[in-house]
């Protein structure tokens, strides 16, 4: 995760001057195609349900690709490939949780959410709880998760474009990515965002597949030869002497020795944040409102799982391929492992293609984050908290969302440029921790616990949100005596991932606050919510086919 950002700080040599390279050509091609889609979507995106939910007319396979495109960030594509290329097995183990987490989405969250909600996760909470306090807290949590995640993506994007397109500066790259995502979301709404994500997923999968095949071809399509090479990767030791290491051997990242005993616990804590947090990520959840019904939502999750799983399995070939064919000594920055491997095996044009894929990857993710943040602001906070659920003028909610998307984008560009030199990778972990500790507990308790009430939701969201942020600030990600973090001091909390503490904290706060309150009004509508969630009676219909 921190790999992309490491690239930002490393300041790889960048030749000055602007050259037209194949990579730039492919970047521009992608931009033109997506702008065309945005123009087409803008003509269709009138009306709230079209703007926020693509008319609920997205099909299962389309949504599956879009979920995958929304979810697999450049940190997955370049970061995990780089992790495997430099640290071997542990990078692969790290990738597993990102897929397994979708089982929570599939089994617990996707269908009830689609059946009982409208545009945001707060719709389900506001349903039997007091709408204004719950929506205000949910909007706060959504905006926090989306902004943190977006800043991490944008800083990564700036660093990456700088590496892939020599001549384009960091600021220009961040501004370019930011302006494009604003254009997609403000003009094209959910429909344009969806298609950008679908195209990205197709590009990412075809690029990875082709690269994997090239790696296998290098080893004469023999898995035995491939893994033999993985068993003795030449690595420079501390004294500069080349030693051969078995990259299938666990322990280089999360091992007990390299982490002073905390590694496995940290990995479990990350796993908890993934398994609980993915089902609470606002930009993933909004995708389930774009399909006609719960059954389609369910099938789309399975599509997404097929794609995401296949992708992470392929990272084995990308990562181990870079480790064996290029060897770590010949890779400038961890994040460049996959693009450099593409260059070595497929030449300049394939390098350009993989670079364009990385660029598309970033854009699709930030566009998804922007639309979920602006939807939550307009629908939850502006309409339902400030204006008690009524629009004062036709189309106001959509107009507010468009303005919010513009503001969110502008703030993200500003912060990403300001934070250029700071390692902000921990913000991705923080986003997952907040989603797991604040959002997921209240979604689950609201759906399945009759006694759950407004106090429980407000406290659950609040404690989950604040708890995650405080624990991250006290963790080695921020408090680092070596000076790499924001605070130069020994960490107070030993784990980089706070989930193992913050998730129980979120649940506990929701549970205790519920029991401390005598509010039993929420129980009267529990039967209704249960019937809706499980049968789809009265659910939001599709408006476009």
């Amino acid at each position, binding site marked *: 995760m921190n790999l992309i950002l490491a690239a930002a700080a490393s300041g790889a040599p960048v030749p000055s001057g602007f050259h037209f390279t194949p990579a730039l050509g492919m970047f521009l091609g992608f931009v033109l195609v997506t702008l065309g889609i945005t123009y087409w979507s803008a003509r269709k995106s*009138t*009306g*709230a*349900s*079209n703007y926020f939910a693509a*008319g*609920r007319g997205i099909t299962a396979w389309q949504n599956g690709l879009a979920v995958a495109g929304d979810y697999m960030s450049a940190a997955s594509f370049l970061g995990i490939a780089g992790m495997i290329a430099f640290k071997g097995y542990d990078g692969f*183990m790290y990738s*597993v*949780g990102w*897929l*397994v987490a979708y*089982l929570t989405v599939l*089994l*617990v969250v996707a269908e009830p959410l689609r059946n009982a*909600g*409208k545009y945001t996760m707060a719709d389900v909470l*506001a*349903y*039997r709880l007091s709408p204004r306090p719950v929506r205000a807290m949910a909007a706060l949590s959504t905006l926090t998760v989306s902004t943190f995640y977006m800043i991490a993506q944008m800083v990564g994007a700036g660093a990456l474009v700088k590496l892939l397109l020599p001549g384009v500066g960091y600021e220009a790259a961040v501004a370019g990515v930011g302006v494009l995502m604003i254009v997609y979301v403000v003009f094209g709404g959910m429909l344009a965002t969806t298609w950008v994500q679908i195209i990205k997923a197709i590009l990412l999968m075809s690029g990875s597949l082709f690269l994997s095949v090239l790696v296998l071809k290098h080893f004469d399509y023999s*898995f*035995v030869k491939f*893994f033999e090479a993985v068993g003795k990767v030449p690595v420079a030791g501390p004294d500069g002497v080349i030693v051969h290491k078995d990259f*299938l*051997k*666990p322990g280089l990242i*999360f091992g*007990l020795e390299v982490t002073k005993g905390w590694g*496995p616990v940290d*990995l*479990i804590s990350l*796993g908890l944040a993934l*398994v609980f947090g993915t089902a609470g990520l606002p930009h993933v959840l909004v995708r389930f409102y774009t399909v*006609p*019904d719960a*059954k389609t939502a*369910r099938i789309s999750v*399975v599509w997404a*799982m097929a794609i995401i*799983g296949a992708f992470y*399995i392929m990272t084995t070939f990308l990562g181990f391929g870079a480790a064996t064919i290029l060897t770590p000594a010949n890779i400038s920055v961890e994040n460049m492992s996959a693009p450099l491997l593409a260059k070595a095996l497929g030449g300049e044009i394939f390098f350009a293609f993989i670079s364009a894929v990385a660029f598309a990857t970033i854009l699709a993710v930030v566009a998804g984050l922007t639309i979920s943040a602006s939807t939550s602001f307009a629908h939850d906070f502006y309409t339902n908290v400030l204006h008690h*659920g*009524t*629009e004062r*003028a*036709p*189309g106001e*909610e959509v107009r507010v969302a468009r303005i919010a998307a513009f503001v969110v984008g502008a703030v993200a560009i500003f912060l990403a440029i300001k934070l250029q030199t700071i390692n902000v990778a921990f913000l991705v972990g923080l986003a997952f921790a907040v989603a797991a500790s604040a959002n997921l507990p209240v979604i689950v308790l609201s759906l399945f616990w009759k006694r759950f009430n407004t106090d429980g939701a407000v406290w659950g969201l609040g404690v989950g949100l604040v708890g995650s942020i405080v624990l991250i600030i006290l963790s080695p990600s921020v408090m680092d005596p070596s000076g790499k973090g924001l605070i130069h001091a020994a960490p107070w909390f030993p784990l980089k991932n706070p989930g193992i503490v913050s998730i129980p904290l979120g649940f506990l706060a929701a549970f205790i606050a519920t029991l401390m309150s005598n509010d039993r009004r929420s129980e009267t*509508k529990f*039967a*209704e919510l*249960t*019937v809706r969630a*499980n*049968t*789809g*009676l*009265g659910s939001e219909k599709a*408006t*476009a086919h």
Partner: protein
Amino acid sequence: MPDKPNPDRDLTAAVGAETDVARLGHSSPPPAHEQTADEDVDVVDWDRVAAMPEFGALLKAKAAFIVPASLFFVVYYFALPVLVGWFPELMEKRIGPVNLAYVFALSQFFMAWAVAFVYLRKAAKFDDQANAIIAQLGTPKGGQSK
């Protein structure tokens, strides 16, 4: 604007159509597809459905699959960091060209796909049960989508 809005006709695509906004002036409820869950409370007699034995059976059938399936995947997944973290000698055992750690990590993907596949098949039965309940109610206004 038509005199009697037909709730089933979709006007959303037309700019400024009445379906474009949730409610103007609070005079009438919004059309079915624009209502939030708590706006159309009187569409279905929810308590009657909740009390139906068929509905109880549906909830039971769902729980009977989802609870054990969730426990299974959580245990299977967290076994990976636990075994690799604290029992590295065991996980470094060779299996063909690779080791147990790699095989177990790879098996996680197939485990996730298998659980998803089994759930899809089970869920088709849950859909049938839910549709049977809806059929008993007749066709309510703003009923199930599609």
